[in-house]
């Protein structure tokens, strides 16, 4: 049983001071329903998640008490990927024909402040200032640069691309392109990562209507197809966030295993992908995720970025809407924003940011604490 995407909806990321996180989720669902030409009462099931916006199933109070199955998903920054995976399997199993996947969030300003107990850790780890996601991404990037000869030039180029793409994406939060120098001279936050190399916790919502592919054309003239959805947790030895200690030998990250599983399911390879969305919590992670997802060798990123390979007009466009760097990160919604953008590109509706030559295969990747990754491959 193939699975189709027949509707996509976004509540613009950034700040919506007059709306709760839940209302932003409902706004995204309404947009996705309108896009599909369907009504909430047509939905047989829903999967959704949010970190700070409340329980996703309470959305029924906004959208209508129709009795549908609504399951809440929570998997850190990989929540969107996990929700879509759950919905994909619900349709693949044959149990349902049509449902909705939704993610939304509304975070306070400033860095996240995770609580150790929620991650199976003792309080001292947070109390002594070791449990910051910004630190982890800096520590991993620092070691990666040392191991693979990546320089600050590559970090700057990732950010420059992100903010440029944001400036031509009407739904992006950050609409202002930044120069190489502005990024290079921005404040150092966590060595080697500077202010304009980090995404910010934000607000927003994203939703998809998915459907049994055999019935998709009844509702939609341009369905897209989920060829693979894979979610993986870490193996012993992979270098992950919220780890008071690490094994001496570094194992493959969950991104590597999720990516391999997804390519195997889809029966294609990285060279077949036309448009790519990678978790770019910061510019260092986009660089590492390029290789972990199989799009290049470790260390090759420096050259690829210098050549512009990951720009919209490059041979492997990455984060065409500006990614997390330009859209911010509402944790529950972020993974579905990636899928939304890939769908926009495959439909050819990207406007100024449209990837040329009629892209046919899209790829999305989320990464979250404490070492979980979700990958989707979507085709025309």
């Amino acid at each position, binding site marked *: 049983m193939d699975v189709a995407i027949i509707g996509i909806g976004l509540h613009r990321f950034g700040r919506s001071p007059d709306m709760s996180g839940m209302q932003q989720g409902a706004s995204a669902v309404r947009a996705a329903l309108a896009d599909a030409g369907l009504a909430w009462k047509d939905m047989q099931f829903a999967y959704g998640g949010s970190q700070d916006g409340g329980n996703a199933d309470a959305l029924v109070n906004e959208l209508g008490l129709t009795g549908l199955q609504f399951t809440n998903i929570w998997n850190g920054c990989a929540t969107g990927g996990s929700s879509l995976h759950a919905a994909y399997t619900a349709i693949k199993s044959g149990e349902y024909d049509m449902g909705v996947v939704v993610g939304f969030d509304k975070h306070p300003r400033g*860095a996240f402040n995770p609580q150790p107990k929620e991650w199976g850790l003792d309080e001292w780890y947070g109390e002594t200032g070791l449990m910051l996601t910004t630190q982890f991404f800096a520590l991993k990037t*620092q070691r990666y640069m040392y191991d693979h000869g990546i320089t600050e030039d590559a970090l700057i180029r990732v950010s420059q691309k992100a903010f440029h793409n944001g400036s031509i994406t009407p739904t992006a939060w950050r609409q202002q392109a930044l120069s190489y120098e502005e990024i290079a001279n921005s404040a150092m936050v966590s*060595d080697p990562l500077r202010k304009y190399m980090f995404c910010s916790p934000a607000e927003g919502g994203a939703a998809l209507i998915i459907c049994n592919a055999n019935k998709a054309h009844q509702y939609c003239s341009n369905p897209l197809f989920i060829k693979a959805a894979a979610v993986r947790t870490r193996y012993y030895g992979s270098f992950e966030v919220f780890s008071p200690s*690490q094994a001496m030998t570094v194992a493959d990250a969950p991104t590597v295993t999720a990516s391999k599983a997804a390519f195997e399911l889809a029966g294609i390879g990285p060279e077949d992908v036309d448009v790519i969305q990678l978790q770019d919590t910061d510019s260092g992670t986009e660089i590492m995720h390029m290789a972990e997802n199989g799009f290049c060798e470790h260390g090759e990123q420096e050259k690829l970025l210098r050549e512009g390979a990951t720009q919209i007009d490059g041979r492997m466009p990455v984060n065409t809407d500006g990614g997390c760097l330009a859209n911010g990160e509402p944790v529950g919604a972020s993974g579905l924003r990636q899928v939304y953008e890939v769908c926009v590109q495959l439909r050819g509706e990207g406007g100024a940011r449209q990837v040329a030559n009629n892209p046919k295969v899209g790829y999305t990747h989320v990464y979250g604490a404490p070492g979980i990754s979700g990958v989707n491959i979507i085709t025309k």
Partner: protein
Amino acid sequence: MTSQVPLHEGLFTWPATKPQLLGSRCSQCAEAAFPAQPDCRSCGSRDTAVVELGDHGTLWTWTIQTFLPKHPYLSGETADTFRPYGVGYVEMPGGVRVEARLKPNSPDQLKIGMPMQLDIIPFCTDENGDQKMTFAFSAVAAV
């Protein structure tokens, strides 16, 4: 009179002439963990024992925390009094990389591969006026 107490029991031997970090080692697969835990992350066995991981190591990666962390950070500092601190993973002789605060807090003082020495340092003062002690690593002074 103020006294000094560990912020958390079981992380290091202290007071001691040469304090050691404490972790656990699995008797099935020999992998080590910090802090000590009753089950093994590598093989899933529940056959682990508390061991000393050592008092020195090599810096595997590092960063600098430049802004005051939010709750549950307990240093008692304010945004005005906050002093940046180093954070790194240190490879211990006990066979595990341990995340720790680093006393050096500027990029020119830190280099991957440099030798590091364990220090038990006062971290904050509790409501009774007692100093809470935690572990950190310093650069080994050049000979």
